[in-house]
């Protein structure tokens, strides 16, 4: 099947048809058929769902047992090197080239993509500025924290100007501030810089904040794909709230909500997850907080999370 002539190739950045990878009894991928549109696409699923296997097949690391895949119109099996020249890959595991600093590492990997050495150094600096690495770029990479290594991994994936980015768990090991900055970078790349992104993550909040559509995997099978909006449908009344107030005041607030049939349960980083039953608007949160003389410092309405969408999709299959 000619790769350019294939009808689906034009709209889909990545086409995967009936792809299977089987190691002995373990079916890492089970006849996966999916089309990744342009822009930022989330590759969702718990650990071990086959996300990494799919990414590695698209990179030509794994030869599929059956079926085939094409990236940017190029058949992976036929032209793995051309595909990898157009792809920027950010591996999941902690990795770096030993004995180098951020600049020489990024430039070196740029050269390995075929860039002339002078341009590689210049592009390396540009990429490192973009990911927010300041003058610590001249320090040996072994002394870097996980957060800084994640930034270099993104920089080396960008240095040769790829048409598409494969990001495997990009916010791994980042503190809250680092995570927000990484997601902002990914949004900027996909929305304003015209770089297609495949973001593989088991953190559904990351995908929700960066991607427009998703492909959902579970046990090697596709359990759902499409735009997040379409998959989510109607939006319920769920809020992520942080109060400024003592422990007692927070308990009073939670009790008051419970009395009215709503609920406030503690979540990560000192947040509260507030679920309002229908008929109650966010004013109720402000009212109850005021009555418990606590301050609402942070309130974000959450549409039904991708967790619910994913749970529903897995439930159906």
């Amino acid at each position: 099947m000619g790769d350019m002539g294939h009808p689906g190739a034009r709209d889909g950045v990545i086409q995967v048809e009936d792809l299977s990878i089987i190691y002995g009894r373990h079916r890492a991928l089970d006849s996966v058929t999916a089309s990744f549109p342009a822009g930022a696409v989330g590759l969702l699923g718990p650990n071990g769902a086959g996300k990494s296997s799919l990414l590695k097949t698209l990179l030509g690391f794994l030869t599929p047992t059956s079926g085939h895949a094409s990236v940017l119109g190029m058949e992976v099996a036929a032209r793995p090197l051309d595909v990898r020249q157009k792809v920027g890959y950010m591996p999941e595991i902690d990795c770096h080239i030993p004995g180098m600093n951020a600049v020489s590492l990024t430039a070196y990997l740029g050269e390995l993509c075929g860039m002339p050495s002078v341009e590689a150094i210049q592009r390396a600096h540009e990429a490192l500025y973009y990911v927010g690495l300041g003058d610590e770029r001249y320090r040996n990479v072994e002394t870097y924290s996980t957060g800084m290594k994640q930034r270099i991994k993104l920089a080396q994936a960008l240095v040769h100007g790829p048409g598409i980015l494969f990001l495997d768990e990009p916010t791994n090991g980042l503190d809250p501030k680092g995570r927000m900055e990484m997601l902002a970078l990914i949004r900027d790349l996909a929305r304003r810089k015209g770089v297609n992104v495949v973001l593989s993550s088991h953190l559904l909040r990351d995908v929700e904040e960066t991607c427009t559509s998703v492909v959902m995997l579970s046990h090697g099978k596709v359990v759902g794909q499409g735009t997040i909006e379409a998959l989510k449908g109607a939006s319920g009344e769920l809020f992520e709230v942080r109060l400024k107030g003592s422990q007692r005041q927070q308990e009073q607030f939670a009790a008051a909500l419970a009395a009215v049939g709503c609920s406030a349960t503690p979540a990560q980083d000192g947040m509260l997850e507030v679920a309002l039953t229908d008929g109650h608007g966010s004013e109720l949160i402000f009212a109850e907080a005021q009555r418990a003389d606590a301050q609402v410092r942070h309130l974000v309405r959450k549409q039904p999370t991708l967790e619910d969408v994913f749970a529903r999709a897995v439930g159906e299959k």
Partner: protein
Amino acid sequence: MTDTAAPIIRAEGLSRWYKQVIGINDVSLTIAPGITGLLGPNGAGKSTFMKLITGQIRPSRGRCLVLGQPVWNNPPLMRRVGFCPEQDAFYSGMTGLAWVRGLLTLNGWSRAAAQEKALAALAAVSLLEAKDKKIGAYSKGMRQRVKLAQAIAHEPELLILDEPLGGMDPMGRRSTIKMIKDWAAQGRSIIVSSHILHEIESMTSSILLVNHGRIVAEGNVHEIRELIEEHPHRIFIQCDDPRQLAGRLVGWPVVAGMRLDEDGVEVQTTKPDAFFTKLPDVILADKVRVTRLLSPDDNLQAVFDYLVK
């Protein structure tokens, strides 16, 4: 025993640099007993200070006293200090119990006494059921807890914990914070390092702020909170009709500035406390349906930028 009021850590003109890179630059301070939070962005000199007070490195200049004694190559002092390092380093082939018991025998206890203390420590960090499992097969949270176990097993007077909550899920975080508070209640002094403000806030009120190798601020977390409060604060509110809400808010004296964009309004204020207390009145009075309310720079970095300026 030194009298309890004496400082647990004293640094006098303490400096440490690695070739040209400054780790810690001429720091003089005393840390009183109780829980002290050591706070600072990554690479701010926090880990250098931790390595100095645990005797892993020598000062380039000045002195560093722990419980009144110099700490470099001072084994007897280690009987009174427990350390939980940040790195994820273990003998992965060994079981949790064997490892903690082995380390305890180094304190001089017999195998039986060490076994008993090790079990007590593992129970304290609720790892009893995994005691015979190899550490290599532990989850990140369990590895963090077994590190804590070896730090408290010999019942030290002073506990030094480097990023104890790193990589833990909310449940694990909450139980570790509770544990740390219980240990302090038993009269132990604890130094906890972290780069996340509200984690430290939940454990203690006395904080040491470190940035670029210098002590930026020392004292009570509420004072630090006030510092955050005083510096210009940005609050973003998203609702159905942002212009109408903006109209109501502009009249408030506490509001210093405002910026409107398509789906919400961003308010600048120097008295966020007063603003947040008054805000619900407007929302309830005008039945404003608020979908997002957040202040982008209410965090540690904001404090540093403000203090360092």
